[in-house]
């Protein structure tokens, strides 16, 4: 029980990291990036490839791939988003668009890496388990938890301690009002979108250890999981995402301990339950249902 709880917290922090980028994108753009999970998958393959080709430590890959994908994100934003925002029904159209993107990424990943699961099997974080409250855990779980915590902290500092973060929150609160008060909405949104993708890729670099093998079809499931996490902790609320991640992680570990054959159902059921009972999430202020 205690073991499942602590493991749940470690995984929960990791899932919060996966969800955070999606939440940031949604908060700023009011669009759900259905390709979010695919960027996690890209990060995963990048880490595996970098390790097998140059023996690059996954934590270095994490930083590198996050920066690279951030740059890709900026470009992607300016190519895709302004056109979409001008259509009649941007919320729906963007879902379809990002789904198309997700298909393209998945197809390219199959061409490049094949359909077999790839992972890093060497114990790069040391063999010795780390002991927390007398319970032994794989070192990599602890490292992933800590890295996720650090990333969450950085995003918090960005949003609440920098000038552009302040503008970002203004755009989240109201796009129109932010625009008339002189904030460059496109610039702020592009950066937030790119940070979201960068976070996804960073989470991906740890995925070989936390999720097992990386396969090209990982994307859709991860996107739904990330969506469950952020809805649980309210959309547009980065701190809520951490809480959502923790609840999800603990619930997942308990399910895997006591009802293993049904644990795959968890993200979907949790998501449906939250949406139907309290669509604003556990920490939300406004209700967003019709």
């Amino acid at each position, binding site marked *: 029980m205690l073991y499942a709880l602590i493991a749940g917290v470690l995984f929960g922090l990791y899932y919060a990291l996966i969800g955070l980028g999606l939440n940031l994108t949604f908060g700023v753009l009011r669009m759900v990036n259905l390709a979010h999970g695919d960027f996690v998958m890209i990060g995963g393959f990048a880490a595996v490839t970098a390790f097998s080709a140059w023996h690059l430590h996954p934590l270095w890959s994490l930083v590198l791939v996050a920066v690279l994908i951030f740059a890709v994100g900026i470009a992607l934003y300016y190519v895709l988003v302004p056109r*979409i925002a001008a259509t009649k029904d941007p919320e729906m159209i963007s*879902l379809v*668009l990002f789904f*198309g*993107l997700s298909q*393209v990424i998945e197809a390219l990943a199959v061409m490049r890496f094949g359909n077999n699961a790839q992972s890093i099997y060497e114990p790069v974080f040391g063999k010795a388990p780390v002991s927390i409250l007398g319970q032994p855990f794989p070192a990599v779980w602890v490292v992933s938890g800590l890295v996720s915590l650090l990333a969450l902290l950085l995003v918090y500092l960005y949003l609440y301690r920098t000038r552009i973060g302040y503008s970002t929150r203004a755009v989240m609160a109201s796009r129109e009002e932010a625009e008339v008060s002189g904030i460059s909405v496109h610039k702020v949104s592009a950066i937030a979108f790119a940070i979201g993708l960068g976070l996804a890729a960073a989470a991906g670099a740890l995925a070989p250890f936390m999720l097992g093998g990386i396969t090209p079809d990982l994307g859709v499931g991860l996107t739904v999981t990330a969506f469950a996490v952020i809805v649980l902790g309210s959309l547009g609320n980065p701190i809520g995402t951490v809480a959502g991640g923790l609840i999800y992680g603990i619930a997942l570990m308990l399910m895997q301990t006591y009802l293993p054959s049904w644990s795959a159902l968890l993200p*979907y*059921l949790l998501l449906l339950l939250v949406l139907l009972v309290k*669509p604003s999430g556990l920490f939300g202020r406004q209700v967003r249902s*019709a």
Partner: protein
Amino acid sequence: MLRRRWVDALVVVVVVLAFVLAPQAYSNETLLFQMMVYIALSQGVNILYGFTGYLPFGYVGFFGIGAYGASLLMLHLNWPPILALLGGGAIAVLLGLLLSPLLRLSGAYFAIASLAASQAVYLIVSNPALQNVTYGPYGIQLVSQFNPTLSYYVMVVILALTVAVVLYIRRSRFGTALQAMRDDPVSAAMAGVPVVRQRTFAWMISAAIAGLVGGAFAWQTSVFYPDAVFSLSISIFAIVFTLFGGAGTLLGPLFGSVVLYGMYNTIGISDPQYFQLIYGLLIILLVLFLPDGAASLLKRRGSHVL
């Protein structure tokens, strides 16, 4: 008014004749069957998205539950196929009723919640723990009921019904009410439209179509695994065909299904990932440059698209 009825009847007759006569000219009956499946499914999506604005990413859930419902009725209760098909449709409607609270959600929330619901149904149906009931991940075998010719014509009937329903919705007060709700639910309610009831009704019609089509698919295919009938790509195909042709029209999704599904079969045979790549790019380009579908090209010239 009378002229419109003739036009409507003509459209149904043309669709039926096309698929009744097609096997004479083109021997790949499976392809024709699947094309009908996608026309019907995209019309189902069309009823929901085109008229009410709800985008059902999890539409495949109804298709899958219809396929499984019909198959299990044949296998466990020995129902004759056509009755089992209707049973599958009824089960899909029940699932729709069960999921109707999802309609309280708006926009992206609904889309993703319906996706989650379909995946949840899939994971329940394919769960090894339910092997005695659903055969779990090992799939369904309906070899004793296999009848490709009869199931083909049953599918033609389902398709004709679907087209007729869409035509009815387009012409009726019901359809107008749905479109009013899509554009502004509050004003529609003020004008006396029973918003929740009619929206739920549209949702269940759409579920029934997918359920019947799923049952027919199961019967025609006769051997399949759960991931074949719950594959997300089925929802996505139906949505893309609808968008490509133009949501909210009858001919749009029909045109989209025939053109794109035909294309799929010319390029899709060799390597699935190349197809997926082309498809993904097509979706992106479509959304960026033609967000209202091919029908909008004609509408821009001022012509009316049925």
